[in-house]
Structure formats: structure tokens, C-alpha cells
């Protein structure tokens, strides 16, 4: 059972890494010379990615609470 949980946690840690990669990608885009509209869209996505990282951490905590 413990092994299953560990694998589950590992999978969500991988998801966290993907969300972090996306967050960093949008941060780079924001540093580039983009239009106001593009900045507005990308900034919203960037903020969402930050929220996604928190959500994935919460999911990991839920799984850990049962371990």
C-alpha cells in the first residue's frame, strides 16, 4: 500500500515540475518585448500556473495525509 502511495506522490511531483516549467516559460515570455494585449493574456496564464503549483502541492498533501 505504501509503495502505491509513494508512486502516486511521485506522479504528482512530476506534474508539479511540469506546472513549474510552464510558469517559468511564461515568466520568460513576459520579459520579452510583447504587445499590451499579449502581456495581459500571458500574465493571466502565468498567474494561473502559480495557482496550479499550489493546487498540485495540496493534492500531494492530501495523498500524504493517508500514508
Amino acid at each position, binding site marked *: *500500500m505504501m509503495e*502505491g502511495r509513494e508512486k502516486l506522490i511521485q506522479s504528482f511531483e512530476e506534474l508539479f515540475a*511540469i506546472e513549474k516549467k510552464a510558469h517559468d516559460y511564461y515568466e520568460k*515570455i513576459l520579459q520579452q518585448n510583447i504587445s499590451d494585449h*499579449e502581456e495581459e493574456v500571458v500574465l493571466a496564464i502565468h498567474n494561473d500556473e502559480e495557482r496550479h503549483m499550489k493546487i498540485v502541492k495540496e*493534492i500531494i498533501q*492530501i495523498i500524504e495525509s*493517508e500514508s
Partner: protein
Amino acid sequence: MAGGADQLLISKKRLDSLVVSINRIARGNLEKRVIQSKDGDELSKLASSLETLRKSLFKKNKAGKKEAASSPLNEDKVLELEKMNKLMIGRELKMIELKKEIAELKHGKSAEILIDDSRFSDGIKLEESVVESLENDYEKLIQKSDLNKDHKELIITKLQVLLSDSKRHEQALKDLS
């Protein structure tokens, strides 16, 4: 006296032999063993130390050759990589030129803008892969797990937020391109 003279001659020969060995080692020829004697005198101690040094250098030399052969950054490989790199960059530049030409033929003056908009393509790919793994892997993973029902539902709700956001991101980036 004669015995003393003989002894001196023998010592001279042994010393000459040691000098030959030292010179050979200095030239990097490490294959041949240093001739040892069982006399236990200073010359035999020197010959023994020299043999230890030869063995050590021989081992290091051999290990160094092996490492150089297996190293991904030996000189030949570096040259080969540089050559490949130039070739790839050349090809990439040619592709950009071709894309520009095609876009110009299709869209006239707006070609430059179309090429520039490809900067969001990495983001679109990233969002696509997130959507795919959320839909195909993560929800199933939770469903199959032995977590309690409430936790399963809570996690799936959270995953659905991620999924709907990622789909929205993908579309927003496509609209920008």
C-alpha cells in the same frame, strides 16, 4: 683488492642499468620492467623504488588512454560535434528563410508578423501535453488508487480545475498566434 674491483665494476654496471631504465621511463617507455637485484643494498632499493614508479605511471597511462577513448569530449568528437552544429545551424537558417518565403507568398506584407508569432508555439505544446496527461493519466491514477472516497473526489475536482485552465490557456495562446 681484486674482489673490491669486481664489486665496483658490478655496481657500475647496475648503476648504468638503472640510468638506462630512468632515461627509458623519462621518454615515456613504460613497458619494460626495471631490473631488480636481491643484494639489499642502496642500488637495489633504488631499483625497487624505480620499478614501483614505473608500474604506477604505467597504470595511470593506461587508465588515461581508456578515459580519453571513452570521453565524449575527446578532440575528434569535439570537432565532429562542431561540424554537426554548423550544419544544423545552417539548415535551421535555411528553414527560417524558406518559411519566410512561403509566408510572404501566402500573406504578403504580414509574413514577418506570422514568423514572429511562432514564439508562443512552445507554450501551446506545453499546454497540450498537460491537457493530455491530465485527461489520460492523472484522473485514472486517482480512480484506481486506494485513497478514501472523499479524498478521491476532492483531488478529481482539483484536477478538473487544472484541466479546464490548461485548455483555456491553449486556446488563448492559439488566439495570440
